[in-house]
């Protein structure tokens, strides 16, 4: 029997595999394919205070081993989520994280204050890193000062733990991670997508209406892994790693470099039960290698 549980300090998870925000809808979309209780948890699609229209299509481009998206965080607002969707998620004994967005610092806080009134949310993942909502991929996580101040405000407003989701589109990820830690974040998740583009040579136009989008999928895994390694070496708060995880061995790489848990993103589109499969593949690895507790494998990288 392998003990797959992990402890984020503020929260214990059944296993280290979470589904990443923006790739798992509001969770309900995956009910036909898997038992949501079989994974460590999931992060629901980013929520602004109010509903969001999102970007005009085309919103997706497939690239070599990857996917560029410019959805623009279309979705319901906190009210519809809390009143209509959350009640249907409460029956699950799995950790439900809400990815919180804002067009301004005030909007993040309004969303958090609204959601504070509802039961059934394990933590907020503060989405300070979406590249698709402001011009040129601008977002708070590109700046350590803004990361610090916004995390601090969110932490003051929140009755739940705050996980800051960081952007890879920076020169020094460690500086931003430290700013999030100093701002009071209970945890860090990274990486969000990598700012990217693609061109149609026939029309000489960008393939995305938004011009830029965020690259995800297996193409970005080595970059994500490097950044997670850099961050776990620099902060004391738990780190959740993500970026291109398709298999159990991908997830294990992130755990070995020191992530306490992982988020699985783009893989959910191709295989809606990817998270469940990855839990199984991690368990198989542990059995084969006589690993009794997955937590014991975290941060065991030998350098």
């Amino acid at each position, binding site marked *: 029997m392998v003990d797959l549980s992990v402890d984020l300090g503020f929260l214990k998870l059944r296993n280290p595999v979470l589904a990443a925000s923006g790739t798992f809808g509001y969770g309900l979309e995956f009910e036909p394919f898997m038992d949501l209780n079989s994974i460590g948890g999931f992060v629901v699609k980013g929520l602004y205070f109010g509903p969001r229209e999102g970007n005009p299509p085309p919103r*997706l481009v497939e690239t070599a081993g990857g996917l560029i998206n410019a*959805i623009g965080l279309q979705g319901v607002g906190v009210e519809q989520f809390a009143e209509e969707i959350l009640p249907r998620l409460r029956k699950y004994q799995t950790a439900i994280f809400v990815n919180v967005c804002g067009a301004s610092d005030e909007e993040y806080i309004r969303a958090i204050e609204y959601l504070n009134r509802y039961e059934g949310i394990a933590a907020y993942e503060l989405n300070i890193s979406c590249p698709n909502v402001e011009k040129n991929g601008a977002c708070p996580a590109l700046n350590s000062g803004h990361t610090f101040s916004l995390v601090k405000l969110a932490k003051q407003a929140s009755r739940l733990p705050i996980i800051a989701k960081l952007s890879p589109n920076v020169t020094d990820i460690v500086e931003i991670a430290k700013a999030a830690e100093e701002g009071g974040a209970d945890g860090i998740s990274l990486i969000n997508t990598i700012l990217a583009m693609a061109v149609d040579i026939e029309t000489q136009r960008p393939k995305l209406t938004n011009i830029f989008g965020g690259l995800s999928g297996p193409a970005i895994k080595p970059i994500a892994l490097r950044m997670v390694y850099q961050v776990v070496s620099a902060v004391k708060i738990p780190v959740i790693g993500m970026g291109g995880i398709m298999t159990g061995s991908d997830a294990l790489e992130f755990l070995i470099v020191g992530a306490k848990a992982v988020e699985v993103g*783009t893989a959910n*589109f191709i295989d*809606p039960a990817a998270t469940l499969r990855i839990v199984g593949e991690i368990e198989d690895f542990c059995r084969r290698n006589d690993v009794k507790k997955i937590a014991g494998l975290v941060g065991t990288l030998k350098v």
Partner: protein
Amino acid sequence: MTKDPAARIVLKQEWGNYFLFGVESPALAGEAKPGQFLMVRVSDHIDPLLRRPLSIHARERNTLEIFFKIAGRGTALLARKKEEDRLDILGPLGAGFRLDAGLKGKAVFVVGGGRGIAPLYFLARELRTAGARVKVLYGGKSLPDLPLKQKFEKAGLDVACSTDDGSSGFHGLVTGLLQNETNKQNPAALFVCGPDPMMKKTAEIAAREKIPAQFSLESMMGCGFGACWGCVKRIRKGDDGAWRKICEDGPVFSGDEIVWEEEG
């Protein structure tokens, strides 16, 4: 909706760049309705990464058929599969066509352009089973782009064809053929699938003639089941139109729901 990781290819037919596969999958075939689609993996590896959305072309007991034209790298890879190969398929997905009970005894037109004919064979046969008098209008650039003409005829369906170059049937676009047909007699309903300009023109004819019309839209899709929000189109549902998901809210919409894009 389910996933069959190993649906066996039991039939393969090809006509130039057009391909038809029959895949045996009781789990998928059992629930299938006309207008629904499948998400098919074209590679076992990470490139191409995404599944490809393909309409359900026909259902025969435990078998579903897909019909497609090579349109890029994904469909080119798929076209290389052989009988006895296995396909990893999600489906059936989407809401499909609405078959109104009031169509019994009524004339209906099924209008397909190019590879857009794919979902209309399944639909035409179901419409006939429901008692409608079905006429199929099938258009393509040239005779080789009408590979399914005989299949419709063999099924005993009334088919009229059009080709842009006049090599078969009506000389012109399928929308011209439709205009001719509606000049003779308006059907009780239109069911349409084809390239966007053809569907937009058909929607104009339907609106002018006040014929209820349903359109099966095509889009690149990230997931096919509502999780990625990548395949949106502006659709009215008692509002002025919002970005709604083709995969989940459609792929079939009525003409008055679709906000057709201005030609750029």
